[in-house]
């Protein structure tokens, strides 16, 4: 019964979404006021999907093997947390989670959006309903999560052991929340293009959604990068893998949107461009989902592959993005550009920011899809790897980081003061970093050298917006910006240090041998077999010494039998000034072992920077919501006094 209730809730929600769309058309075409009913429908629709999702959680928690999805993806003996997480650790369940989040976001738009005009809200809710309808159809016709099995089998087939990781229980929800936030920006943009009301009110309504989505995407990318670093055992933090790029592209678009939306909110300028970015940001998240789900690009996420579902997703992508682009092409001309600005102004700073981010986005996009085009045209197979991305995106990112220090100092509309005077100390810091690296490490590669220079300059330049004023009276949004920009400097420092100073040692060692890596002396003490629940392993015991510091690390090579797989469990020890990273490989015929040792100075700054960037976003979001709350309270008070 539970599964049927879930399915019924899903059908009802789909029906309501259709009704919501019809009401939008009626409201915009004829003189019909559908706004109130659309708001209620959006809320009920959100609740219904929540019911459907709760039903799925219940059948998974109870291990109801008569539901095909549970049988295929769970087993009665799994730990409870993975039973529940198993509900979205598969295609159908994750799509249900996606529509649930989408519908709940729609409900919040209906409840909270008082900033846009009624007409734009109606159009946006209609657009949101169309988005949801496509995914309801996908679920109900192509991937029903509640399909039954008769007779019910006694036990399930279990979950891919690689997915039994606490991180993977939270990874999809975080990502989906981010994508859905961008879908709201998309719907609002489409709604505003339909009504022609692209103005600063719209930007203020859109901003919290973009900010929220951007925070989650930032955290998702940072966490994904750390996962790849410790789990894959290759010692790198970014591999330019197609799936990594698929997560980076929506982030780049969202970052650009986040900045241009401020121009629209504050000055009413950059209308068409901001709408375009809102469409592109969501398109990129759909492209990402498509690339991962269809498996057309080979990558580490190959477990999610299904070509038929890929076709369905591609059709949805073509319809939604195509429709939005057509709308943009037709309506874009009617948008009047807002307040003018001069060459040296906050606005032009943000335009430059947007241009560079868009170029980087283009570079990543082309690099990711280029092999596909080449093969389609000439039949030749090739792959685009880190050398291309680093060589092209690296310098652009450095230029952008350098400008991050300048932009926030510029005034809106027209900058009269000599801004560069304020940058004396940051410039001095940057120059000294450059001189120091040239004197001490003349052989250093140009990119890390410039990385140190820009990072040293930006550490100081990023906090300038809080200098010369009482920092405690600055708005939270300003604090957020400063923290996020400071985070960029920190992450850049980590990347430069990692690129310039990593020591790597790849050696064959017998127990009793000592190796040096960076400042460390590493003794291979012993190699012993060990075993876990569904794996066996060889475990090396390494004793690392640096001065008085002695630590023991135990890297493993694990062999899983069902399905057969081999993983390297690296052992990592973090110190204030870096990480010691060790991997044990296979033995050779003489009883010696392959060891890979890295000393990575200040590598943790990369992820610390990522977290700071997200934290900055969170501060800004908090500030915006806080203001919204007080302004509404003040309005209410004013009303009460006036009409009491």
């Amino acid at each position, binding site marked *: 019964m539970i599964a049927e209730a879930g399915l019924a809730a899903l059908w009802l929600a789909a029906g309501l979404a259709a009704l919501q769309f019809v009401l939008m058309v009626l409201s915009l075409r004829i003189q019909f006021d559908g706004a109130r009913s659309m708001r209620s429908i959006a809320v009920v629709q959100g609740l219904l999907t929540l019911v459907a999702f709760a039903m799925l959680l219940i059948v998974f928690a109870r291990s109801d093997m008569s539901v095909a999805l549970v049988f295929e993806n769970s087993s009665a003996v799994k730990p409870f947390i993975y039973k529940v997480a198993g509900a979205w650790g598969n295609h159908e369940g994750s799509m249900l989670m996606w529509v649930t989040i989408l519908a709940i976001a729609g409900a919040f738009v209906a409840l909270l959006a008082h900033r846009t005009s009624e007409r734009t809200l109606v159009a946006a809710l209609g657009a949101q309903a169309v988005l949801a309808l496509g995914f309801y159809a996908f679920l109900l016709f192509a991937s029903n999560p509640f399909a039954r099995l008769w007779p019910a089998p006694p036990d399930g087939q279990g979950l891919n052991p690689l997915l039994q990781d606490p991180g993977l229980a939270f990874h999809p929800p975080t990502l989906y929340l981010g994508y859905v936030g961008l879908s709201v920006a998309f719907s609002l943009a489409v709604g505003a293009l339909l009504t022609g009301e692209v103005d600063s009110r719209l930007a203020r309504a859109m901003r919290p959604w973009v900010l929220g989505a951007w925070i989650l995407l930032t955290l998702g990318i940072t966490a994904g990068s750390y996962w790849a670093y410790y789990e894959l055992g290759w010692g790198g933090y970014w591999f330019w893998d197609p799936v990594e790029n698929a997560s980076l592209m929506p982030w780049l678009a969202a970052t650009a949107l986040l900045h241009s939306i401020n121009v629209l909110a504050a000055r009413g300028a950059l209308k068409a461009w901001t709408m375009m970015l809102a469409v592109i940001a969501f398109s990129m998240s759909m492209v990402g989902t498509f690339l991962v789900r269809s498996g057309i690009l080979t990558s580490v996420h190959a477990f999610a592959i299904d*070509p038929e579902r890929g076709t369905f997703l591609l059709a949805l992508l073509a319809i939604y993005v195509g429709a939005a682009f*057509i709308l943009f092409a037709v309506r874009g001309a009617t948008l009047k550009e807002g307040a003018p600005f001069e060459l040296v102004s906050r606005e032009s700073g943000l335009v430059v920011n947007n241009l560079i981010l868009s170029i980087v986005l283009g570079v990543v996009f082309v690099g990711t899809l280029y092999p596909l085009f080449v093969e389609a045209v000439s039949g030749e197979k090739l792959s685009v790897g880190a050398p291309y991305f680093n060589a092209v995106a690296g310098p652009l990112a450095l230029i952008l980081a350098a400008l991050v220090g300048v932009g926030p100092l510029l005034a809106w509309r027209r900058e009269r003061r000599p801004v560069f005077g304020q940058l004396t100390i940051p410039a001095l810091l940057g120059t000294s970093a450059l001189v120091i690296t040239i004197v001490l490490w003349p052989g250093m590669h140009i990119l890390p050298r410039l990385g140190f220079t820009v990072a040293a300059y930006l550490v100081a330049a990023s906090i300038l917006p809080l200098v010369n004023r009482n920092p405690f009276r600055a708005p939270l949004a300003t604090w957020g910006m400063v923290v996020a920009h400071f985070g960029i400097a920190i992450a850049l420092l980590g990347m430069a240090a990692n690129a310039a100073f990593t020591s790597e040692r790849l050696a064959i060692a017998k127990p009793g041998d000592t190796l040096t890596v960076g400042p460390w002396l590493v003794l291979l003490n012993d190699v012993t077999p060990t075993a876990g629940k569904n794996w066996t392993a060889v475990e090396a015991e390494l004793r690392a010494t640096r001065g008085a510091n002695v630590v023991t690390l135990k890297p493993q090579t694990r062999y899983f039998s069902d399905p057969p797989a081999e993983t390297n469990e690296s052992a990592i020890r973090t110190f204030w000034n870096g990480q010691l990273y060790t991997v044990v490989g296979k033995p050779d015929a003489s009883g010696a072992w392959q060891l890979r040792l890295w000393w990575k100075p200040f590598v943790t700054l990369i992820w610390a920077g990522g977290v700071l960037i997200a934290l900055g976003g969170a501060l800004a979001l908090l500030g915006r919501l806080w203001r919204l709350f007080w302004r509404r309270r003040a309005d209410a008070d004013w009303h009460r006094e006036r009409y009491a």
Partner: protein
Amino acid sequence: MSRTIRFAPLALLLLIIVALIWRLATPSDTNVHSTLEGKAVPAFALSAILPNKPPLSSADLANGQPHLVNVFASWCVPCITEVKVLQTLKDSGVSVEGIAIRDRPADLTQFLASNGDPYDRIGSDPQSQVQISLGSSGVPESFIVDGKGVIRYQHIGPIERSDIGLILSKLEQAR
């Protein structure tokens, strides 16, 4: 904003959609094709590893007959099942040659005694030098070499029972 620019994103989208549809319709060929296919076997002369087995050199392969050259080792687990399939091929008249990678005579004798010995010749490649020059990255792998000593096919991984038809047809083509 000019009309052309406003329609540019749409055109770009269409282009990308077409490419993606093409990819979905023609899934990529995941088989690895050796770049050495169609080229002569690099010259080598391996010494014998067992006293009762003649050694293998590239000259032995260019004798007018097609050969199946199997890169294997006694320490390789999939090779145990593969060697039985090779025996079936041998029984149907295929000439099978072996290159033993990083092997020891005692281990190899033991391996052949317990699993069967389909090999006409076995060369010893203690440092994987010939294996690398052949473009082979692991064991087991097999090469079909025609009578002129030209590589016609590279098979990565063990030859399974289900591959027998494929191997025989490749050998027929190499004749």
